[in-house]
């Protein structure tokens, strides 16, 4: 096995995360005017502003500020929330679980929709199913995520009274209640990503079905089922996994929106609350953690790709 590929991917993930720390750091630096003044509001006293400047280290050179901040962040210290003085890291920690759960269930629902539709439309190109599937994927990407969430709440929760319109129960507390709360938000985020995935799964499968080795498999008299499952699908999976990886960032974008619509206690809603309260350290932390999460999932997918495709021996 060639571990150079793994090493290379690991290295580029580290570079990306470092880059994100710079972006997140700069975010606060470019707040117009004095960040301390902006954070405290127009009516704060000069002493309060000076005190905050000192506490945040704003009076030091910018590179030193960044390195200090980075050093603390690496040790898990992301500073204190401006609003309630709590540790930012502690606040974020409790939000990672719900966001991650929502992302994974959304991904699962999205794939459960996209996989069969994409497969059938690739196996029967030009059929009614194919046309409907193509139209579905075209229309699906145009639906605003938050609007779909709102409509589901109106119909499923308010009118039919089937599922709760918002909120969260930890899975350890009550798995049934957790499930009831997660279905609507996960379906909302999953539906939009399904419409994109359907298209990619269809074209990945079509590529493979037209390959020579699939023709050979058919020519030697294999049953169609065996051709599709053993020869075509296994190879198409490689491309499909790559595409899912590329979709992860977009999926998390949808998760942020869904969390707000369904009052889901995740990182996205926390970030938006931080914006409303001008709580910049909290916003910094939330953006950083989400970006690290996305990068790690991407890295995981890349390594999965490495395991799935024995041909990969990247230089």
């Amino acid at each position, binding site marked *: 096995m060639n571990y150079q590929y793994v090493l290379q991917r690991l290295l*580029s993930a580290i*570079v*990306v*995360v470092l*880059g*994100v720390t*710079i*972006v*997140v750091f700069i*975010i*606060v630096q*470019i*707040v*117009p005017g004095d960040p301390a003044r902006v954070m405290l509001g127009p009516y704060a006293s000069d002493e309060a502003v000076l005190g905050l400047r000192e506490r945040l280290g704003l009076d030091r050179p910018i590179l030193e500020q960044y390195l200090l901040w980075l050093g603390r962040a690496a040790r898990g210290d992301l500073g204190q929330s401006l609003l309630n003085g709590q540790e930012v890291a502690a606040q974020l920690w409790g939000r990672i679980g719900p966001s991650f759960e929502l992302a994974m269930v959304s991904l699962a629902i999205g794939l459960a929709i996209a996989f069969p539709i994409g497969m059938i439309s690739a196996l029967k190109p030009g059929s009614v199913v194919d046309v409907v599937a193509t139209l579905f994927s*075209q*229309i699906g*990407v*145009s*639906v*605003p*995520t*938050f*609007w779909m969430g*709102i*409509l589901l*709440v*109106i119909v499923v929760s*308010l*009118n039919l009274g089937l599922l709760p319109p918002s909120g969260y129960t930890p899975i350890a507390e009550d798995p049934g209640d957790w499930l009831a709360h997660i279905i609507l938000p996960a379906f909302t985020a999953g539906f939009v990503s399904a419409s994109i995935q359907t298209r990619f799964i269809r*074209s990945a499968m*079509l590529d493979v079905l037209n390959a020579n080795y699939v023709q050979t498999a058919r020519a030697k008299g294999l049953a169609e089922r065996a051709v599709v499952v053993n020869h075509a699908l296994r190879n198409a999976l490689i491309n499909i996994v790559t595409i899912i990886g590329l979709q992860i*960032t*977009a999926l*998390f*974008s*949808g*998760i*942020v*929106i869904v969390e*707000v619509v369904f009052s889901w206690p995740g990182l*996205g809603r926390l*970030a*938006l609350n*931080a*914006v*409303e309260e*001008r709580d*910049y350290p909290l*916003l910094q932390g*939330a*953006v950083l953690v*989400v*970006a690290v999460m*996305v*990068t790690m999932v*991407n890295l995981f997918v890349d390594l999965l790709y490495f395991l799935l495709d024995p041909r990969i021996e990247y230089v």
Partner: protein
Amino acid sequence: MAGLPATVDPRKSKTDEALGPANTLWRDALRRLLRHHLAMFGAAVLIIVVVMGIFGPAITPYDPNGMDFSNRFGNPSMQHWMGTDDFGRDIFSRIIIGARVSLQVGFVAVSVATIVGASLGLVAGYSTRLTDEVIMRAMDVLYAIPAILLAIAIVAVLGKGIGNTMIAIGIVYIPIFARIARAAVLGIRNEEFIIAAQAMGAGDIRILLTHVLPNVLSPIIVEITLSLAFAILAEAALSFFGLGTQPPDPSWGRMLSEGRDFFRQSGWMGVFPGLAIFFTVMGFNFLGDGLRDALDPKLRR
């Protein structure tokens, strides 16, 4: 069969075709586009939206901010086609005015993304390995932060409001244009016409603008159209969060967030603004897909 001319004129030789009008590539593309049903449907929807955007105030049946408290939460009727909201304002009029906001944000944001992104991509693809690495790694970093979250963070820093929303959405889509422009440049940078231009002593900027840019235009045009769809979705989401358009100006996203508290009284407040966003975004998506097929028939599947 699609894409082949219906009849071939035997009197016309290959040389004639080669010597035909200089813009025949674009004309061919236009012909293919006009035959693309979904693209034409998208274009028709967009024409309606653009008309609403341009003539907005002149064609609204009511004052979009005019309140009528005797007529709150009205269902759709002959007087109010889309009903009335919690202040008794005519939803249809507000949707018409909202079109302008969506289009403005879309065009400004995508212009920012295109100009900055494509320039960075052109430079990255054409210059040294080091410049390329630095630019593209920076793009990777921007790309690692989910689009909406990055936009929220940027608006948080710059301040709420429609102008900053445009900038934020523009910044978010810079990496996409950089990647597309770079890939297109890499595909042609070793072609003979580039080398010939270099041999004749043309400067880098001249080569980029007169030789490279025209050849990478089609993927960029396609991406512009598709990005307009995303930009309008993003503006709606940010306004829904209360970061974009500020009251009392109507924006489709804000209308949905204002309606949220009243869905028990009137579900209609949640339906029509969403439909407006949906159709506009779909229009750009259909047109973009059609453009892709029309400009690059080889890719057609």
